[in-house]
Structures are given as structure tokens and as C-alpha cells.
């Protein structure tokens, strides 16, 4: 019965909110919300009987009553200070409890060739790229959480990088929650990189206190021909909160997309990330690191769709699990019938630190073309006794030796980040998380 409650409750919230909208009710943006609500109501809430949710029980989320009324912004600059470094080097875009905060954000109009606004504003301004791409990824159809996000997007964030523009500064999208007990926020990002555009993008999700909220995000990225997008996702929600993020990437020919998906927080955190190639000679790198302890559950689902020939993909997901935490990795590489000369490598490596931690990993290959090179591998193990012994023989204590080894394991991915201060910041954060 809870299942219907979950839907009914949200439906009521939606209708109540709709009454309070004035002119917006007739807007095109709201029509998309309404259509998405219909989808949401028609879809079934997944259970562990569904293959895609086999290892992740979401009844703690669906059994809860969430409010969707976003409160007015309240967090002060002082508290956000820890997220800000080298303000000059980055362009910060800050959302507090689901709403864009201009006071905390940098000057959104400061970058040449880069348009940044809310999606709502972009629709009002009839921005052709926003109208063309928003909510158009086919893979979002049939995904109940994506439909939920679309129906409750308050403003959304639209980033457009013009043709042959290299964004001068990396963009940092910072979502924070504060005093957000039982609040459901629906962050929505639409990133369009036109032909030959280059962008560094950092997306972070954090809680400023211990209130239990639900972040249900959707990010759509379009990389046009020759575009290059470097994407870092940092999820550090508090351990009472829930986090779901659907990240959909579409890559045209000769494009390059790289991501590093770091998950450290949340009680239950689920990321669905998928990229599909629509043009030849494209490359995608999907890397990820998840570190969990306590009773956390971190679930990463990835999908790389080789729909056209001559594309390459690399994937490496690493996990460190302690306490009673659970990790799930489900990676799928699909090579379609005509996608000859595909090169796909997928790997998942997990270290279990405690008796009670567990990992369910499922690296999958679906191949319909014959002239391809595809490999996948998965390993699960613990710290090697020999390495520990080696360090101990050199006078390093057990604790420190372990921490050196785990840090080295995790750092393998983080030290590939080219933005130096971002790398230092994340390295510090990860080693703090691991100690």
C-alpha cells in the first residue's frame, strides 16, 4: 500500500503547488512537468524483484513522506565557505534547497560564449537549444525517478557552450541542503556543448546539516561534434539523506566525454549514468569511486551504448566498503549490430574492509558485432597481506599501513584530475573519509 501512497502523496503535492502558480501554470515548461507527472503516475515503483533494482531496496525512500515545498534560501555564505576555493578560478553556480541563489553564485553572464540560466528562464526566453534538448533523451522515458524529477523541477539549470568556445573557467554546480528535513529536491541540469566546445564541469551535492532529504537529480549532457566535456560528480550528502541521480550523455561524432563519479555520502545513493554514441570516432571515459561505511548503500549503474562503429569507451569503477555498508556496481556495455571496430574496456575493483560489508557487482557485455575488442573484469578482495607486510617491515604501524594502501587504491582515479586545486581538495576529502 505504501507504493500507492508514495505516488498519491506526490500527486497531491503537485496539484497543490499548481494552484499556487499564477501565470506559470500555462507555460510550456509547466506543460512538460504535467506530462511527466502523468508518466510518473503510470509507472510502477521498482522493487527488488526488478532486475535493475535487484540489490537496492528503495522502500526507505518510497515509504517516506516527502514535502516538495522548497523553502526560501537560508544558508549564509559562511557555511558555504568550505565549498568555495579560488573563486576567481571557478564559476560557482549555487543552489540552496533546490533554488538558484544568485547571491552565492558567481556572475553567470561573465563567460564569453557561455549561456547560463535556469531552464525555466530559458523557456521563457525561447532559447532554441533549451527547447530542442530539454527532456528529450529517450532513455529517460520509462524511468520513474526521471519522470518524478521532471514533474517537480523548480527551475533547473541550463548551460549552453557556443560553437568552438572553450569555457574560460570550470563551472561548479553546487547543490546544498540545509534545514531540509523530509524535503525532496529535484535538481535538473541541461548541458549543451555545441560543435567544438570544451567544458570542465563539476557537479556537487552536499548536505550542510544532518536533516534527512531526498535529492532526485537528472543531468542531461549533449556533446556535439568535436565537443569535449570533462565532468566530475561529487556526492557527499549527509548519511541520513537519499540520493538518486540519472545522468544521460549523448555524444555526436569525434566527441570526447570524461567523467569521474565520486560517491561518499548518503544513506542510499543511486546513480544511473549512461552514454550513447550517435557519431563515429567518439570516446567516453566513465570512471567512478565509491567509499561507504556504516549502513550506507551506494549503487552505481552505468551503460555505454555503442550504437555506431569506431568508438572507444573506458570504464573503471573502484569501491572501498567498510562497516555494514553495501556496494552495487552494474555496468553494461552494449555493442550494437553495426558498431564494428568498437573498443570497450570495463573494470570494477572493490576492496572489502570489514566482515559485514558486501558488494554485488555485475559487469555485463552485450555484443552484436563481430569485429570488436571488448573486455571486462571484476575483482573483489581485501588489502594484500604482502603489501601490508612490506610496509610494516619498514616500521609503519598497522593502521597507517592500511590507510596508505587504501588511499593509494582510491587515489589512482582522483590523481587523474587535471584541475590541480580540485584534485587537492578531493584528495584531502577522500583521505579524511577513509581515516
Amino acid at each position, binding site marked *: 500500500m505504501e507504493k500507492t501512497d508514495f505516488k498519491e502523496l506526490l500527486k497531491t503535492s503537485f496539484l497543490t503547488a499548481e494552484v499556487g502558480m499564477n501565470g506559470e501554470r500555462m507555460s510550456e515548461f509547466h506543460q512538460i512537468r504535467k506530462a511527466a507527472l502523468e508518466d510518473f503516475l503510470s509507472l510502477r515503483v521498482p522493487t527488488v524483484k526488478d532486475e535493475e533494482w535487484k540489490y537496492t531496496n528503495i522502500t526507505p525512500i518510497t515509504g517516506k513522506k516527502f514535502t516538495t515545498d522548497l523553502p526560501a534560501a537560508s544558508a549564509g555564505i559562511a557555511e558555504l565557505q568550505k565549498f568555495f576555493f579560488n573563486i576567481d578560478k571557478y564559476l560557482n553556480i549555487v543552489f540552496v534547497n533546490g533554488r538558484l541563489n544568485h547571491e552565492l553564485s558567481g556572475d553567470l553572464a561573465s563567460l564569453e560564449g557561455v549561456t547560463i540560466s535556469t531552464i525555466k528562464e530559458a523557456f521563457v526566453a525561447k532559447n532554441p537549444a533549451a527547447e530542442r534538448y530539454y527532456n528529450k533523451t529517450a532513455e529517460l522515458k520509462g524511468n520513474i525517478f526521471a519522470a518524478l524529477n521532471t514533474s517537480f523541477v523548480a527551475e533547473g539549470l541550463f548551460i549552453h557552450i557556443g560553437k568552438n568556445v572553450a569555457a574560460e573557467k570550470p563551472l561548479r554546480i553546487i547543490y546544498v541542503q540545509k534545514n531540509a528535513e523530509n524535503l525532496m529536491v529535484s535538481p535538473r541540469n541541461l548541458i549543451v556543448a555545441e560543435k567544438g566546445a570544451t567544458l570542465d564541469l563539476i557537479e556537487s551535492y552536499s548536505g550542510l546539516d544532518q536533516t534527512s532529504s531526498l535529492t532526485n537529480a537528472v543531468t542531461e549532457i549533449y556533446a556535439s561534434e568535436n565537443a569535449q566535456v570533462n565532468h566530475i560528480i561529487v556526492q557527499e550528502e549527509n548519511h541520513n539523506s537519499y540520493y538518486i541521480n540519472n545522468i544521460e550523455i549523448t555524444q555526436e561524432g569525434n566527441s570526447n566525454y570524461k567523467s569521474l563519479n565520486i560517491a561518499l555520502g548518503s544513506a542510499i545513493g543511486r546513480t544511473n549514468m549512461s552514454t550513447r554514441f550517435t557519431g563515429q570516432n567518439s570516446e567516453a571515459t566513465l570512471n567512478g569511486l565509491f567509499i561507504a561505511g556504516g549502513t550506507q548503500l551506494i549503487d552505481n549503474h552505468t551503460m555505454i551504448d555503442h550504437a555506431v562503429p569506431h568508438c572507444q569507451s573506458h570504464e573503471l569503477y573502484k569501491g572501498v566498503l567498510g562497516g555494514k555498508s553495501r556496494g552495487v556496481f552494474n555496468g553494461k556495455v552494449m555493442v550494437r549490430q553495426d558498431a564494428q571496430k568498437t573498443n570497450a574496456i570495463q573494470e570494477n575493483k572493490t576492496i572489502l574492509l570489514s566482515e559485514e560489508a558486501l*558488494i554485488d557487482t555485475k559487469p*555485463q557485455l552485450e555484443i552484436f558485432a563481430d569485429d570488436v575488442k571488448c573486455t571486462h573484469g571484476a575483482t573483489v578482495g581485501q588489502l594484500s597481506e604482502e603489501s601490508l607486510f612490506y610496509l610494516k617491515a619498514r616500521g609503519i604501524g598497522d593502521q597507517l599501513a592500511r590507510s596508505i594502501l587504501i588511499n593509494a587504491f582510491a587515489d589512482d582515479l582522483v590523481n587523474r584530475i587535471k584541475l590541480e586545486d580540485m584534485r587537492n581538495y578531493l584528495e584531502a576529502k577522500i583521505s579524511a573519509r577513509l581515516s
Partner: protein
Amino acid sequence: MSSTEVNEIEELANQEYKYGFVTDVETDEAPKGLNEDIIRLISSKKQEPEWMLEWRLKAFRQWLTMKEPKWPNVEYPPVDFQDIIYYSAPKTIKKLNSLDEVDPEILATFNKLGIPIEEQKALAGVAVDAVFDSVSVATTYKEKLKEMGIIFGSISEAIREHPDLLKKYIGSVVPPTDNYYAALNSAVFTDGSFAYIPKGVRCPMELSTYFRINASNTGQFERTLIVAEEGSYVSYLEGCTAPQRDENQLHAAVVELVALDNAEIKYSTIQNWYAGDKEGKGGIYNFVTKRGLCKGVNSKISWTQVETGSAITWKYPSCVLQGDNSTGEFYSVAVTNNLQQADTGTKMIHLGNNTKSTIVSKGISAGRSNNTYRGLVRVGKKAKSARNYSQCDSLLIGDRCGAHTFPYLEINNPTATVEHEATTSKIGEDQIFYLNQRGLSNEDAVNMIVNGYCKEVFRELPMEFAVEAQKLLSVSLEGSVG
């Protein structure tokens, strides 16, 4: 065109299948359909005790409440379970003491199949429990095995003669409620083999059963149970061929293995059921539940399979590693050609301490076929120091086929070391060119490469089987290289 003409044309068109012929033996058939009366009929025909009938009925009632599984990566029209004859036995059944008493036509069938019983008797030292259309017709070498205390014969016979053993072990590894097809099998199984190896005995020969589906429209529901007592060893061979049919035939077998302390069971299968013609017409549906229980310490169960036949194969020979230090192995070659579909793999369930498992799976897809590896490695919470190594390779021949890998790794203990590797590749043009240069035709070149690719698995097969497997592979891949 009259129907006979059509049939003739079809027969001609379907000649590729070497073993496609029907032997005319009068069969004693039950009416089509499945209900409690049919089960009672089977049970009474088999002269089974009351408890067995109850067991079957219980399974049947359970089956009625279950749904056909839809998760395998295969597609087929729905099976009408009421359109199947669940019992058919050669009428000539009598207690037989020697081969002379066997219907000569049946013997001829075996000769066509290349399994001359009399020759094997003398030459290979293989005891053959030949199952012809669900009833054991002849059992050789039984006397010799009997001297050593080994029981080897049909399961129906065992139900009558060794009720205590059967009661104890049947359904203990694959319970009737396990899955849809296991429940169906438990309700209607008509025959199969039973082997019991007593304490400390090393079975002196490879035990072997040849299955063969003969009468049209009969599903084959075999049930095999092998129990290896403490310190014993047995190697069991299972091989199948089936005649050509236009209607899909259902084969839902159950195999249960139990290995007690220090015992070892080696189970080898060559599966060559009729795969359907080039257009995917006909062919066997092979939905099998095979599971071995390493119950005792240091026990070992090893599955080796060569799967070349069937329109649809759906099977996961599994090992439950319950005893400490027990070992599970799975070696598989699965070949699909034309429109065949295979969803096969294994499950290794680590429960005891220091348990080890090895998985080597080689999938070959050609034509327009789909070949899926689906495997599970689960390490239980209390299973200390479990070790698993899995390797699954796929080879694609042609660009209209599919290879899929779905490994599931569920690790609940930090002391486990689990490795999984998979690769997908094709036969390189340079490799073929190299062999062409040395005077080998394209087809021979492919055969050679494929055989090399499968060597790791063939090595695990008993000698006679390994030879047969290689031949089978080349027949299966015939015409796949342009």
C-alpha cells in the same frame, strides 16, 4: 502442394542433421495433456510406491501456482503444456538380461548413432545405461559394478529397489519447488539414472547414459541423481542426440549430485539435441536444472559441458560449496549457429570455509544466433577465504550474431578473493590467412582456431568425449564461414 510433398521437401532440406531419423517401435503412450490423472498413470506405470506419487503430486500442485520464468535472454513462442505427451515407453519392455533381448531395431538405432553397445562393452569399458524414449532398455556392466557395491541404473528401478536412498536424496539438492521447470520435472519425470558410489570406492569406469528423444511430441523429463559417499570418486558422462522434428520439443531435465566428505564427482555432458533448421524451425527447448551439492569437507564437483545443439538452451549447472575446503568447477563450451539461442552459465555458491571455484566458459556464436553467459558467484557471510576465478570468453563468427555476458558477483565476506575476466573477439583475418597459406581451407582453418580456443575445456573431458566434441564442433559450425 500436398502435405506429403511438403514433408518430403522439408526432409530433403533438413538433411544437415546427421542423426535425424525415427525408429519405428510401437510406443505405449499416455494421452496428451497434464493433470493429476496423468501423474497417477505415470506413477502406476512405473510401479512406484505411494510416497513417490505423493511427492509428484505435491510438486505438480506447486507447479500450478508458479509462473514460467521470463528473465532468460531467449525468445520462443509460449509452450502449451497441455499439448505434450508426458509418458511414452517402448512396448517391448521386459526384464532384460542380455543385449540379445533388446529390440533389434533399437540396437540398430544405436549403431546409427555410432554407439554400438556391444563394441563399447568390450572396448571402452563404459557401462551404458541406454535410455530410449524414457525407459531404460539395457544396462551393461551392471553386474561388475554391483560387486563393488555401486548402484547404477534407472531411477525408476532405484525408486523400487532402494527407496531409503532415494527418499533421503531425491529433491535434496533441487527441491521440487526450486523453479518452474524443476517442479514440472518432479511431477512428471519418467526416467533417468541413479548412481550410488559407496564409501571409499573409486568407480572403475566412466558411467554413461545416452538419452534420445524418439516418439514425436513427447517431452523428455529425465531425472538424474548421483550420490558419492565419503572418499569415493565417479565420472559420469551424459550425451544426447535427437531426431529431427518440426514441432518444438520440450526437454526439462533435473540433475542432482551429492558429494560427501572427500568425494569427487565429475559430470561431463555433450548436448547435441536437434537445433532446428536454418530458419530456426523446430528444434529442442532444453530447460535444465543441474545442481551439485558439495556436502562434505574436501569434496569436489566438476561440471564439463559441450553444448552444440537445441534451439534454446537454458541451463546453469551449479555447485553449492557447503563443506569446508570443497571445490566447484565449471568448464563449458557453448556453440550457437543459425537461429539458436543459448543462455547458459553456472552458479557457485560458497558457504563453507576455504572453498574454491573455477569457471571457464567459452561461447561461440555464428550465423544469427545469440549466446549468453549468465553466471553467479555468491560468497556467503560465513564463508571465510573463498576463492573464485572466472573467465568467460566469447567468439563471434559473422556480424549478425550476438554474444552477451551477464556475470553476477555477490560478495558478503571480506576474506574472499574473486576475479572475473571476460573478453570478446573474432577470428582474425590474419589468422585465417596464415592457415590458408599453409594449405588449409577456410573451414578447416576456422575449425582449427575454434578447437584451439576451446582446448581449455576439452582437456577436462574424458578422452572418448573429447574426440566426439571436436567432431561435433566442426559439424555445428559447418557453413558459418563464407
